[in-house]
């Protein structure tokens, strides 16, 4: 049940962030700011080839470099049984190349030295002899019988990883066959990389005397990392202390465990000294886990009136050399089955085939719940094609097919139970914010003047907050999350959660949430995350799960405290607990509001003046196993114009109306939306990790991998509707990723809308100006 914010409650208020005073002074403590006594630096030797056998590695010259302390190769790791590590997807990945390399820039050796520069010098002097092998770049070729088998370590002798299917194929086929209207679209979501501005890194500090490893690491999931490291290294888990300091952005990039981390740990264990490894930007983009690389085909059936009857999707998923997706174990294609979106499809079927190629491993959930961006892009793009085919306004088509408010909880044909939504209302709000009808009229006029103007709509549904333990685990660990709250005698409190923010503002928003539950001031609650020795176990921050999971835990931990507090309050008021009432700020005697005590009074009494026999203290821990996922949604409308001379697309306006349920801090929510839209804009227009036929990565740095700057980024306009989640303790749904999930389709739909009068029905992303210009030329529209 959603709780109303009382006047004094900080819930729903745009409170300024508590983390900012240190960050704006340059006093954040990020990974590379950590310096320990006797610390060594590590650098990695990487393969220039995408597929090659390693004939020999010569280390003598590297060993002679002044300052170099040690060098390890795959052979050394094999001797220690550490050559391979498990990925979160249940595959395994080479730590350092074992016999051969499978992607360009793969890790081959690790050099550790007294200084950062000496480590780099040493790495440059390692000489590796390679015998190049046939490279497989195209995932469809990888599936053919002519392709060489890339993963010789597997029993299965082909490049197929897994097949995953959901829905009733027969029924979907039949419904499609019977449908008078059908559209089929090939839709590709290219390989991209989250590229947070802070790259990944770690400092491994093993003390031989205590046997304890302190591991500072850029981690979105410190507890999961502790468990994985314990499993890989054999170190007892209680002697591993993971600290994820301030994180400079994550977006999914900092969920996996990377080979460099394991090498730094191994070298620290070996040398008994702290070892720091910080990757360069090029290493970050070229080797840490990518996202997307989904090659999809979708078919929708509908009636002449535009009522959808069936959806059928088949997808080839390029995972690179190792399946290093960070998906929950039972979901190799993540939550891709949200692909029926916001619409009432009676029948649906989706299948995905995972494939190995000679590219860097992945894929991660890049600012989206697992594979939800792919699903949302597919359905929102294909609905556009259907609207075109039927000659219907895309808004009208959506209205005819929306799941209606009274149909929630709604069981989708692919197995989800949507919690709540008011799709029509949300869309209506976006339309009035942007003046949709006025825009269409204006578009008609501008078209007459020869302008290429388009309006694109996306009305998406997300699925976040993984997740309920009956379905969701990562390597067996259930995907609950946790919160521990301790209230000190003076009424100030500390709260620790199993999540790890990377800019989302948890230090502020979780303080607001807990303050709301306890009648305290948010200023008096310190929120800490990222230290596994102090925080309760949790699965971390990604896939918009923090508020749905740890936020639920925080609310329920606070309510557990309130239960005890009520007894103490009764004792102070000298009445029975049953006669005591909580009004959001105070406990008071029922029907007698003047006799009241605050949580601060109760806190002091919990340590000084307890009812007879009661255990002292005022604290609680709650492990929250959510009963269901949450389903944030939104309606986005983009307006674009296309320059006929250059193919440049200008986003003239963009309105995003999000419904993420109860809002804890509207300023933070809006900031999340701005950021997510910008990444969606980047994905639509410029971000792509492409490869040549030899497997060379063509965008391994910020010169070639283009991310939006302030100049081209549109000025976002936002709004919201608030449909609380019926099952979340405060009704919140999560928001960090909706804008990245929902926006790419809005941009493409707008460009297609601009060009559709000239026969264009599909445009591939990223929509680089040259690509658009080619389309313009083909259709004699270029100037």
């Amino acid at each position, binding site marked *: 049940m959603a709780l109303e914010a009382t006047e004094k409650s900080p819930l729903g208020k745009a409170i300024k962030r508590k983390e900012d005073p240190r960050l*704006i002074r340059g006093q954040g403590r*990020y990974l590379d700011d950590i310096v320990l006594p006797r610390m060594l630096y590590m650098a990695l030797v990487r393969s220039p080839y995408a597929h090659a056998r390693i004939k020999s590695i010569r280390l003598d010259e590297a060993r002679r470099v002044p300052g170099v302390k040690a060098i390890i190769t795959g052979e050394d790791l094999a001797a220690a049984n550490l050559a391979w590590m498990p990925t979160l997807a249940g595959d395994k990945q080479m730590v350092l190349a074992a016999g051969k390399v499978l992607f360009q820039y793969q890790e081959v050796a690790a050099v550790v030295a007294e200084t950062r520069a000496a480590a780099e010098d040493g790495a440059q002097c390692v000489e590796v002899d390679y015998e190049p092998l046939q490279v497989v770049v195209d995932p469809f070729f990888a599936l053919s019988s002519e392709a060489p088998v890339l993963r010789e370590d597997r029993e299965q002798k082909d490049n197929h990883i897994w097949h995953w299917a959901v829905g009733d194929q027969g029924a979907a086929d039949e419904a499609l066959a019977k449908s008078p209207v059908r559209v089929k679209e090939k839709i590709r979501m290219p390989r991209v990389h*989250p590229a947070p501005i802070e790259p990944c890194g770690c400092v491994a500090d093993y003390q031989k005397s205590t046997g304890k490893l302190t591991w500072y690491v850029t981690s979105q999931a410190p507890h999961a990392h502790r468990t994985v490291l314990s499993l890989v290294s054999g170190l007892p888990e209680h002697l591993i202390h993971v600290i994820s300091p301030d*994180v400079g952005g994550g977006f999914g990039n900092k969920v996996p465990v990377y080979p460099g981390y394991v090498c730094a740990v191994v070298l620290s264990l070996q040398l008994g000294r702290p070892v720091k490894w910080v990757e360069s930007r090029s290493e970050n983009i070229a080797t840490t886990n990518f996202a997307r690389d989904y090659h999809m085909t979708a078919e929708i059936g509908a009636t002449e009136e535009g009522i959808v009857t069936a959806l059928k999707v088949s997808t080839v998923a390029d995972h690179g050399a190792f399946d290093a997706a960070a998906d929950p174990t039972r979901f190799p294609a993540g939550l891709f089955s949200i692909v029926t979106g916001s619409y009432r499809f009676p029948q649906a079927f989706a299948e995905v085939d995972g494939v190995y190629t000679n590219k860097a491993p992945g894929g991660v959930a890049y600012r989206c719940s697992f594979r939800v961006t792919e699903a949302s892009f597919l359905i929102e793009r294909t609905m556009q094609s259907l609207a075109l085919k039927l000659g219907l306004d895309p808004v009208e088509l959506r209205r005819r097919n929306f799941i209606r408010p009274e149909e929630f909880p709604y069981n989708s044909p692919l197995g989800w139970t949507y919690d709540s939504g008011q799709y029509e209302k949300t869309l209506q709000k976006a339309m009035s914010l942007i003046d949709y009808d006025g825009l269409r009229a204006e578009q008609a006029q501008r078209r007459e003047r020869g302008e290429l103007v388009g309006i694109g709509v996306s009305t998406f549904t997300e699925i976040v907050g993984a997740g309920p333990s009956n379905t969701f685990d990562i390597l067996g660990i259930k995907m609950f999350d946790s919160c521990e709250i301790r209230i000190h005698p003076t009424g100030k409190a500390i709260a620790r959660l199993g999540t790890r923010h990377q*800019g989302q503002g948890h230090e502020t928003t979780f303080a607001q949430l807990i303050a709301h539950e306890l009648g305290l001031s948010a200023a008096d609650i310190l929120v800490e995350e990222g230290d596994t020795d102090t925080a309760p176990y949790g699965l971390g921050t990604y896939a918009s799960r923090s508020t749905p999971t740890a936020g639920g835990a925080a609310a329920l931990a606070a309510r557990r405290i309130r239960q005890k507090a009520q007894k103490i309050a009764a004792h102070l008021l000298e009445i029975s607990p049953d006669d005591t009432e909580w009004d959001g700020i105070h406990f008071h005697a029922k029907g007698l509001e003047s006799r009241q005590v605050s949580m601060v009074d109760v806190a002091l009494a919990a340590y000084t003046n307890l009812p007879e026999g009661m255990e002292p203290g005022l604290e609680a821990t709650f492990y929250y196993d959510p009963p269901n996922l949450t389903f944030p949604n939104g309606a986005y409308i983009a307006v674009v114009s296309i320059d006929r001379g250059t193919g440049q697309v200008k986003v003239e306006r963009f309105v995003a109306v999000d419904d993420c349920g109860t809002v804890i801090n509207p300023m933070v929510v809006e900031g999340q939306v701005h950021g997510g839209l910008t990444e969606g804009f980047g994905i639509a227009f410029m971000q792509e990790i492409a490869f040549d036929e030899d497997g060379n990565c063509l965008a391994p740095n910020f010169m070639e991998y283009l991310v939006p700057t302030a100049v081209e980024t549109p000025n976002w306009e936002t709004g919201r509707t608030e449909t609380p989640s019926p099952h979340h303790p405060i009704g919140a749904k999560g928001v960090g990723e909706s804008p990245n999930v929902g926006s790419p389709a809005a941009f493409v739909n707008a460009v297609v809308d601009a060009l559709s009068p000239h026969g264009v029905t599909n445009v591939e992303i990223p929509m680089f100006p040259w690509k658009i210009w080619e389309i313009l030329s083909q259709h004699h529209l270029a100037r």
Partner: protein
Amino acid sequence: MEKVESRAEVPVTLTINGETRTALAESRTLLAYFIRENLELTGTHVGCDTTSCGACTVLVDGVPVKSCTMLAVQADGHVVETVEGLDKDGVLHPLQQAFWDNHGLQCGFCTPGMLMTSLALLRKNPNVTEDVVRHAISGNLCRCTGYVNIVKSVIEAGQKMALEEV
């Protein structure tokens, strides 16, 4: 092939945030690492290796410079300003205050560079438009905020600085 070059250390003296400091550095040391590691001012960040992100931006003689693309020895004898020099006696600079007030940062990793680039801009002319700000910070990448609130923060800080000048 000559792979390992001389690593002779040379003294570098510069004025940083008003203080004159000398430290030894290899002649190949980048200014960004000299500031971070030799002078222990870790507010200046490193986010790329192609002079693209601007997280390392500092002012050298008042001009914004990507300190990952300048050698420490080149800054010898010059005046350097970093994010740590912005607040005076605990009082936030108008730019810092505006970033805080307007939610101009999220993870904060790009923020020191953003602040320093904006500082150089507003010192020249505090009355700026959205377009001017967007172009001025186009060499500073932010992956979190979508820039809208950064632009708002810079404009607001400029207005405050203009008032202070009067």
